[in-house]
């Protein structure tokens, strides 16, 4: 069993007990524990179930590489799934539950997948997707859906606070082990501004655990002294609990600081995302131990050898009473010796190497530990917990020589430098034959804006294996980074470490070498995603030669641990199966973040009200005070309708339409885009931008215009007014003002830069109010001021003057078909003008109306709406807007595209009106269904509804739509499919439903 030892535990405070719960069970740990250490101290080795087979899973590692020990942490608004127990600091009151099991961790029904393992091989998902279809839908999908997914998604809004932080430094050092400390010191001594970050709460990394001796003192003391020296340097900033999440272009890096995970309820932000710009980045990210591939290597109790040592030394926790150590290198002997020193039993060290004579091996023998060389593990015995191992010859096929009872196995397959951060921005790797790992190739570093290398690795991350090598390499890295950042390093020598002589490791990718299929299908590569040696071999047999394809096919390395443990082992198996060398097969791509970071940290403060700034018209507050039901339009909020007490929104909309058509209505149209185009070449410019002629527009007149992109598709519309000889005012759609302003700038700056034109976006400088309805003129006359008669201000004209004392520019334009004045006043006068209108309008029964009434009235008139009738594939000709396309102009944006064969073609879907036979409202977006099916076996479709409303004016449903050859099919009855799979019949009619002659607007 795993238990708390009476001695050791350099990171825990035995005076401070902490209570926590796991699956509702009350447990105790110490301050300084990780959740994983505390669970092991309580003999809770079983912590979860694997993704596919629901195999029992125990704690495997002691750091961020842990694939198994993922828990749901917290409750309610603080629930977070997939939290690594190995990197979760214990705190009083912590609650954790295990994941991926039903009904309980001990008894899981999904474990039946385990016995189906033969039928769920690599590529299972792909194969079942392909054939047979019915089996996927009725058998596999429901089953997979039921068992899919790790963890539980939180249901409540996150109760915590998050923030972003910006930092600019000369040298960023990622990793606070002895390498990072030394690199930071060397760079700091050169005078560079240094930021040193460490993902764990404590500094020094592995060296104190491994018993390294630096400058004649224990690593622990050296770390303490170096930290003190760094803290005393003003140009050095230290941050623990902060992971280097990613390295990006030109020295950009993300740091993920877990500020308050360990002190919940404090008023600190929970996480802080650091957005760092560094001239140079030193990655001192260490190395990760690799598992060995033997049958049953996933049974709880099998752990990484370094992790076993970490638990004993750091937390005073023993993973087992009797631990068999299996290794291909010297380092695991340290674990055996450490266990022995802690008074625990090590029945055997199994070493694949035929002959081992290194000092560590001698020490083990002297300690009375049995060392079996040239041997391997045929299989691990046990199910939810290791009960023993079967010994075999590594060179053989797995014949059992001897069975050894034990309750833990410490395995070591060698070390892989953590190259992730080096690789994120293009750093390349080389294969190191001696250590059987990929390490950064210093000659091919990530490059910055000047082509200079901006990342340098330090210590084990470079592939250095002994403490002495690590410190020398880190010292050089720190100095190199400082030099590259423009500083002169001091000529201090690198610290010396006691020698650590060792024998070369022996690469072992499968144990034993000639393992049978039955053994290979129990050798786990990816513990979280259940990918085994046999799966990768199968993928190779099925023709997957690229490591990237194999990854996706088998899901190797695609779990939340991103293959930190499985990567090299997996591709070594693949290389072997393909008969190629490992470097030829290569690695998959390393992508940020290094380990998952919280969504909260990414969002930072940008949530709720400040997620996006809201644009408000000058009249926004009035709308709010008068019960507006809002509609988002771009970044604006516009009143959709103004429901009165006891009225539904729909009833309000109908009332507003009828009141406007019968009497008079008031619309806040301030969001309408207003762009001034001015200059000697303004007319010529607008002739290029609009499909119709704008240069011929007379001063004092307005003209409706269309804008297309170079693909010929309609992009915006609006009324243009000519202000004076060289000035035009272009109205755009509400959402389109910024886009169209940029569009104009783009052409003026990049194509016609010699044309003399200025454009300015004045959208927010003016409030614009539409007074609409038969009594509109009476309202304005009562307000007093300029002459608004038909004679002085005819339809499609505009005038400037005073209205009720306000500075007004009045446009006789109509989007409703009624007598209509759109009046622009300076934004500062907008609210007062609106209120003045409301006051004088009362006598005429004037009421404000919202965007939905606006939409209904324009649809009744057959006016198109950008975004409804257009979707980026519609040309003006499709909408019957030929009258707004100049035949005379040689060129305008979109003209050439509209001459392409499939555009200049009557055989397109074109705009028509639609009237249901039963008067009902057609569902929005539904399709006209023809006879038979198309090439894809889908129902033949020949049109769709683009706008559909209940018209209160006509008392029935009206719609517009695009129908194949529509205008030639007037009177034809066609059918539309509805979401409930029935059909509605509708007659093709003219899209103008109301006042076809336009008599009402032109009075």
């Amino acid at each position, binding site marked *: 069993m795993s238990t708390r030892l009476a001695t050791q535990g350099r990171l825990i405070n035995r005076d401070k007990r902490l209570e926590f719960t796991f699956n509702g069970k009350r447990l105790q740990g110490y301050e300084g524990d990780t959740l994983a250490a505390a669970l092991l101290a309580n003999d809770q080795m079983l912590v979860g179930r694997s993704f596919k087979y629901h195999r029992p899973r125990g704690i495997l590692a002691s750091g961020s590489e842990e694939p198994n020990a993922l828990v749901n942490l917290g409750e309610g608004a603080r629930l977070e799934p997939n939290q690594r127990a190995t990197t979760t600091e214990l705190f009083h009151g912590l609650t954790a539950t295990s994941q991926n099991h039903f009904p309980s961790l001990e008894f899981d029904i999904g474990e039946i997948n385990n016995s189906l393992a033969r039928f769920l091989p690599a590529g299972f998902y792909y194969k079942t997707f392909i054939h047979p279809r019915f089996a996927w839908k009725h058998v596999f999908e429901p089953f997979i859906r039921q068992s899919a997914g790790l963890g539980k998604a939180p249901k409540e809004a996150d109760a915590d606070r998050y923030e972003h932080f910006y930092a600019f430094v000369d040298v960023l050092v990622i990793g606070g082990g002895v390498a990072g400390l030394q690199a930071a010191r060397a760079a700091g001594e050169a005078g560079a501004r240094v930021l040193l970050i460490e993902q764990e709460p404590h500094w020094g990394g592995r060296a104190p655990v491994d018993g390294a001796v630096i400058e004649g003192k224990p690593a622990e003391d050296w770390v303490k002294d170096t930290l003190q020296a760094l803290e005393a340097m003003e140009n050095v900033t230290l941050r623990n609990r902060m992971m280097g999440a990613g390295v*990006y*272009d*030109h020295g*950009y890096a993300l740091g993920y600081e877990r500020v308050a995970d360990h002190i919940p309820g404090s008023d600190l932000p929970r996480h802080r995302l650091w957005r760092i*710009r560094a001239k140079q980045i030193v990655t001192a990210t260490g190395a990760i131990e690799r598992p060995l591939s033997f049958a049953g290597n996933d049974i709880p109790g099998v752990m990484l050898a370094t992790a076993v040592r970490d638990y004993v030394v750091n937390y005073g926790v023993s993973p087992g009473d009797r631990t068999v150590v299996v290794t291909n290198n010297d380092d695991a002997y340290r674990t055996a010796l450490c266990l022995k020193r802690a008074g625990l039993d090590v029945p055997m060290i199994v070493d694949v190497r035929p002959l081992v004579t290194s000092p560590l091996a001698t020490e083990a023998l002297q300690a009375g530990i049995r060392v079996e060389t040239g041997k391997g593990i045929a299989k691990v015995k046990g199910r939810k917990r290791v009960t023993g191992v079967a010994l075999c010859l590594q060179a053989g096929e797995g014949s059992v020589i001897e069975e050894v009872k034990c309750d833990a196995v410490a395995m070591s397959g060698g070390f892989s430098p953590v190259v992730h951060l080096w690789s994120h*921005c*293009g750093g390349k790797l080389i294969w190191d034959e001696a250590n059987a790992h990929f390490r950064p190739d210093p000659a091919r570093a*990530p*490059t*910055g*804006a*000047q*082509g200079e290398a901006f990342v340098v690795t330090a210590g084990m991350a470079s592939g250095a294996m002994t403490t002495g090598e690590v410190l020398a390499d880190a010292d050089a890295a720190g100095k190199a980074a400082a030099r590259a950042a423009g500083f002169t390093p001091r000529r201090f020598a690198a610290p010396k470490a006691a020698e650590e002589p060792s024998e070369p490791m022996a690469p072992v990718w499968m144990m034993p070498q000639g393992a049978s299929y039955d053994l290979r299908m129990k050798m786990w590569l990816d513990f979280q995603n259940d990918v085994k040696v046999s799966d990768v071999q199968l993928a190779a047999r099925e023709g997957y030669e690229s490591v990237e394809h194999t990854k996706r096919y088998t899901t190797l390395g695609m779990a939340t641990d991103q293959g930190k443990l499985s990567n090299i082992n997996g591709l070594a198996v693949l290389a072997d199966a393909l008969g190629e060398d490992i470097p030829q097969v290569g690695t998959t791509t390393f992508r940020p973040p290094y380990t998952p970071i919280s969504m909260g940290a990414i969002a930072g403060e940008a949530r709720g009200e400040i997620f996006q700034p809201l644009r408000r018209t000058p009249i926004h507050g009035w709308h709010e005070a008068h019960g507006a039901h809002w509609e988002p339009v771009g970044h604006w909020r516009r009143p959709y309708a103004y429901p009165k007490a006891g009225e539904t929104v729909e009833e309000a909309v109908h009332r507003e339409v009828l009141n406007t058509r019968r009497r008079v209505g008031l619309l806040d149209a301030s969001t309408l885009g207003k762009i001034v185009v001015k200059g000697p070449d303004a007319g010529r410019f607008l002739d290029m931008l609009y499909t119709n002629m704008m240069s011929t527009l007379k001063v004092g007149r307005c003209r409706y215009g269309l804008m297309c992109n*170079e*693909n010929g598709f309609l992009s915006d519309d609006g009324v243009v007014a000519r202000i004076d000889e060289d000035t035009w005012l272009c109205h755009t759609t509400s959402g389109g003002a910024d886009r169209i302003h*940029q569009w104009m*700038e*783009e052409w003026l*700056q*990049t*194509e016609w*830069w010699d044309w003399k034109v200025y454009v300015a976006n004045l959208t927010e400088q003016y409030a614009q109010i539409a007074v609409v309805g038969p009594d509109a003129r009476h309202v304005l006359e009562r307000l007093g001021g300029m002459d608004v008669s038909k004679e002085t201000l005819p339809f499609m004209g505009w005038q400037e003057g005073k209205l009720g004392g306000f500075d007004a520019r009045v446009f006789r334009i109509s989007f409703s078909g009624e007598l209509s004045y759109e009046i622009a006043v300076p934004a500062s006068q907008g609210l007062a003008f609106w209120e003045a209108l409301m006051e004088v309008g009362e006598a005429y029964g004037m009421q404000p109306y919202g965007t939905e009434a606006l939409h209904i009235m324009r649809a009744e008139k057959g006016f198109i709406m950008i975004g409804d009738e257009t979707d980026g594939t519609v040309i003006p000709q499709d909408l019957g807007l030929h009258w707004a396309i100049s035949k005379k102009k*040689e*060129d305008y944006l979109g*003209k*050439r*595209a509209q*001459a*392409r064969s499939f555009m200049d073609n009557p055989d397109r879907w074109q705009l028509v009106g639609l009237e249901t036979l039963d008067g009902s409202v057609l569902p929005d977006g539904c399709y006209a269904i023809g006879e038979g099916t198309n090439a894809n076996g889908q129902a033949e479709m020949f049109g769709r509804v683009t706008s559909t409303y209940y018209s209160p004016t006509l008392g029935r449903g009206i719609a517009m739509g695009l129908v194949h050859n529509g205008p030639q099919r007037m009177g034809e009855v066609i059918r539309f499919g509805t979401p409930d799979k029935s059909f509605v019949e509708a007659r093709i009619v003219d899209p103008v439903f109301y006042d076809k002659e336009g008599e009402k607007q032109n009075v």
Partner: protein
Amino acid sequence: MLILTCPYCGVTGEETEFAAGGEAHLKRFGPGSSDAEFESYLFARKNEKGVTFERWRHANGCGKWFHAARCTVTLEVFGTYKAQVTEPPKEILAAIRKRRPGWEPAA
């Protein structure tokens, strides 16, 4: 995240301050052009691996369009220059050749 310098206002800023605008130095083809010419103007992009010329806009700054010559492989920026040119200026080409001896612009 790249760092670019706007040749108009001189600001050196983060990529988030700018907006990318695709390949630079396209020749516009309008009415009267052949289908092939127009197709190449609308759709055919070099999308080069290596030295490339791009349009950028100082979107969250002075608002000006400019061009950047950079390497899509190494992320080097050879220089930025104003948009009112139909081809890369000599000093930009020289800066590229200085670091990529023998480089010739693609046809």
